[in-house]
């Protein structure tokens, strides 16, 4: 299931926020990712006695599953890059290769290791780190959940809602809806622009689409309580909606 976070109350005339505008559109994939990112964050797994991130933790395994490249230091000046998906390997040193790639690995690692949030795993002289593109597709994330469930004794079923803050649940309305893709999520929250010559485009509408029907939905709670910024409203565990039934394209309506 996906989720929408709706603006409650109109701020002012367009392009300011209008009541019911979609502030955030979260796909099921994105919701899963935020939980995995949190559960597998390097901060959860500390440092070994020498200050490196320990290998064989969920933090390292998560990167191994999602990142394009694994880097391993081979010696004082050489780094091995492995494309995790294809297995292709390439070594780099201080001299440029044909693609103008080089690395001064000592300087590189020194800077990384000096950072409190560094992601350098392994041991001194045999450091491992990750880089390149990051695959957070549904397939990749779903395949990683069993490992998380096994090692942390948690259940994915308990991590299906976006972790909105109390403040957000007081100021906005979160709705659980049928899932949509990332492309659609982008369209839901995109503004509407008018092109201008020799200038940046002008925003006509803050959000292209909005939910006009939220006040008539069977929310199970009063409209007053939703509109009250002192009251936390969270109906996601008990109510879900069909996205296409509550979202209308404002720009289409205006035409």
């Amino acid at each position, binding site marked *: 299931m996906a989720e929408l976070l709706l603006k409650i109350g109109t*701020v002012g005339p367009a392009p300011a926020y209008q009541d019911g505008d979609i502030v955030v559109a979260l796909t099921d994939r994105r919701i899963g990712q935020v939980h995995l990112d949190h559960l597998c964050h390097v901060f959860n797994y500390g440092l070994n006695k020498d200050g490196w991130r320990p290998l064989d933790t969920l933090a390292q395994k998560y990167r191994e599953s999602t990142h394009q490249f694994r880097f391993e230091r081979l010696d004082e000046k050489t780094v091995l890059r492995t494309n995790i998906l294809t297995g292709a390997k390439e070594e780099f040193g201080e001299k440029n290769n044909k693609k103008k790639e*080089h690395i001064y690995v000592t300087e590189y690692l*020194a*800077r990384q290791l000096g950072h409190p949030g560094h992601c350098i795993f392994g041991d*001194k002289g045999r*450091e491992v780190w990750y880089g390149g593109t990051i695959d957070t597709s549904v397939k990749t994330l779903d395949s990683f959940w069993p490992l998380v469930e096994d090692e942390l004794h948690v259940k994915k079923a308990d991590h299906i809602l976006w972790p909105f803050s109390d403040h957000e649940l007081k100021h906005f309305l979160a709705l659980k809806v049928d899932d949509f893709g990332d492309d659609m999520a982008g369209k839901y929250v995109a503004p509407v622009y008018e092109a201008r010559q020799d200038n*940046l485009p002008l925003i006509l509408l*803050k959000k292209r689409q909005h939910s006009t029907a939220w006040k008539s939905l069977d929310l199970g709670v009063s409209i007053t309580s939703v509109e009250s910024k002192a009251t936390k409203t969270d109906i996601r565990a008990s109510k879900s909606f069909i996205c296409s039934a509550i979202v209308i394209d404002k720009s289409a309506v205006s035409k």
Partner: protein
Amino acid sequence: MATITKSIKASGGDYTTIAAWEADLDDTGIYASGDVAIGECYNQVYNEATVTINGGGTVGLASRKLSVAVGNRHNGTAGTGARFNNNGSIFLESTIANTILEWLEVDGNETHIYTAEAIRMDNGAIISKIILHGFYTYGFRGIYAWGNLDVFDSIIYNLKVSYGALRALDLICSQYYNVNIYNSTIHNLKNDSAYSDWVFGIRGVDYNTLRVKNLIVTDMGGTSLGTKLCYFPSSPVQAVMDYNLSSDASAYGAHSLINKSSSNQYVSTVLGSEDLHLKAGADAINAGVDLGTTPVGVNIDIDGYDRDSNNVTWDMGADEVQTQTVTVDSVEGIVASEVIDVLRFVPGGASDGLKLSETISALSIIRVGTSDGLKLAETISALATIQGGASDGLKLSETISAIALAVDIVTDGSNFSDSPEGVATALGSSVDVFVLGDLSAAIRTLLMGVYDRVEIVDQSPDPITGTIFVLMQGERPFLIITAS
């Protein structure tokens, strides 16, 4: 008038998304006219679609800033701080005077995005300490801007298009607006269009309101037959463009450096592990012009290092190489024993990760004594854990012996505060092991990465090696660093 700071993070914050923070900027229950609104991100991924920051106009905010909390900021390389990672864009619209975007990493993750730019900045926007990279798409601008605006101390790299023009910075200029582009680094733009489409590192219009200084722009490439230039215009009549570096001949100005290889500028250009900090000996080091503190924050480099307060000669690019190894955070009460721990982190070397000569250099910065109560025996014991190698011929026992000599100077009751010259002379007498040259770049970088503040309290001339820098912890001497 108040500064209202709200946290944006997946757990335990005021908001979980940037968009939700922005959507509340006109909430009169939170903000009032004249307030400064700050949204602080954290070390996590912000996987959001397009974010438009134009709220606050109804309330009448004085300014709005999207930043990253201290301790969660990147270190000038990708993947180390708060990362905006999606196929959307960030739009900074001018509903109020100042909109600031800083310390965020904007990662395209090599995916096609819906709009033609990663960041669109309108009149009054300021961007600093941004890392923008990894956009592989069609006709594209890293940053598309109009109006009065500042971009400084930021890094843009790895942008590629297969169709249409490509520009890391595309500036709509006029005689009415001041555009300041300072101390930023742009690297590796590729245009593989089948047509004659351009690729420009920075494209502006030749008005005297355009100022471009202290930039490094390298490697505009690709298979397109169109024009490829690091800087456009490359021969300005009015625009103020100087003290820039280019890998082609397009950096204009008497103080600019042209036809410089990217391989002699950066720590790493390896795909997926890029580090565009300046390598030791880079052409861009000390080749910039001192911009003082205007616009506000221009003096703070991509690592948070203050060029102005440290009174250094400015480098070109987003990174300022910290040439003197003087890094102690006296506020945190760092002590010598902790420094030794840090030194253990120094990578290098073939077998044990650190050459013995480098070890000595590192150890020599440790002035162990009464300041933190670390005993000589403990010191030597700690030092012994740092393995030396045989590659440079100096034995570990000799190292320890030499160190012991120096340590004795301050553990036998001598008070450095009373007689700094005496200690300097004593150290000079053991010059056979304390001639260091400059500290290695690795150690320098490491220490700078660990400690935030630097204070040079005293500089005593060393009769043999050059200069001794004495670092103080409160009123007490703490570290001595010798540098030739």
